[in-house]
């Protein structure tokens, strides 16, 4: 009887944990998409006033033609920064992958029952844990 009560409360706890996880995941996914929708709305509103007067190709050409060198450099600066960040990230993960197996091997010699975080060898979340 007591076991059944414990089991029931355990299941309830798991249910609440699932609810928290599901709602948290939805909110986590919704916030960026809400931002994306806002940006798309800005673009739409700025083009809407020219509907029927100019084609999208006209707008695109005028946009590129009106772009100043200083603005182009600002974009280039930002894009280079992002590319550099991505290269550094890849380098870091390559390094993690190279060193992890050695650390694991050495630690297992001292602690044969060594437990693991179960991340991928590159230190990333496993696909099944992303849900």
């Amino acid at each position, binding site marked *: 009887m007591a076991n059944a009560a414990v089991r029931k409360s355990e299941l309830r706890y798991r249910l609440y944990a699932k609810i928290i996880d599901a709602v*948290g995941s939805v909110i986590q996914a919704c916030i960026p998409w809400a*931002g994306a929708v806002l940006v798309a709305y800005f673009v739409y509103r700025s083009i809407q006033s020219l509907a029927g007067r100019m084609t999208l190709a006209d707008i695109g050409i005028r946009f590129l033609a009106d772009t100043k060198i200083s603005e182009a450099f600002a974009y280039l600066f930002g894009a280079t920064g992002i590319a550099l960040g991505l290269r550094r990230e890849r380098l870091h993960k390559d390094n993690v992958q190279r060193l992890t197996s050695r650390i694991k091997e050495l630690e297992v010699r001292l602690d044969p029952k060594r437990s693991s975080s179960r991340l991928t060898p590159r230190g990333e979340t496993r696909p099944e844990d992303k849900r």
Partner: protein
Amino acid sequence: MTPIEHITASLHFALALFLFWTLCFHYWRRYRVDALRERLFQIRGELFDFAANGAISFDDPAYGQLRAVMNGMLRFAHKFTFSRLAMVLVLRKKLERLHPGGFLADWGEAVSRLPEGTQKSLREFHGRMIAAIAWHIVSGSPVLWIFFACLAFRLLAGGKAGRLEEVSSQLPGVDIVEAQAINIELQGSLECA
């Protein structure tokens, strides 16, 4: 400004917003999770060295359980967000009633059987882990910055905390977030076994 100039300016603004959005919600988010994992790996490494130096046996439940907790935190680091913390706070009373103590209580009991110096060190490792997670959650949400500033002021002024690290570990709900990660980790281990 002619209408076309106005549109060009708007498109530049939209493009900049889009790039900023990509940076914030994709790359920055990924970086924050990696940075948290790096800090947790560092603490877990120090815990291993602590045991390797003979301060505690690798077979001691206090060591094994703390390492398992850290593994859970590493595995689910991407799930420590403000939205989940807010949900935990909303359901806090129900969760505490359904699962009082649990795994953390077992760990506390295992630690209390150790010499005082070892106890202190293990609690310090645990405290640092909690502080890293709490700081990760707080630093990712502008809403929590204000809340954290108020909490820090209250605890520091009241003498209940001496350092920001201690304030982080007293953030409401962090203990339950930790308990949840441990439970999911334990369920995963059982399923794998």
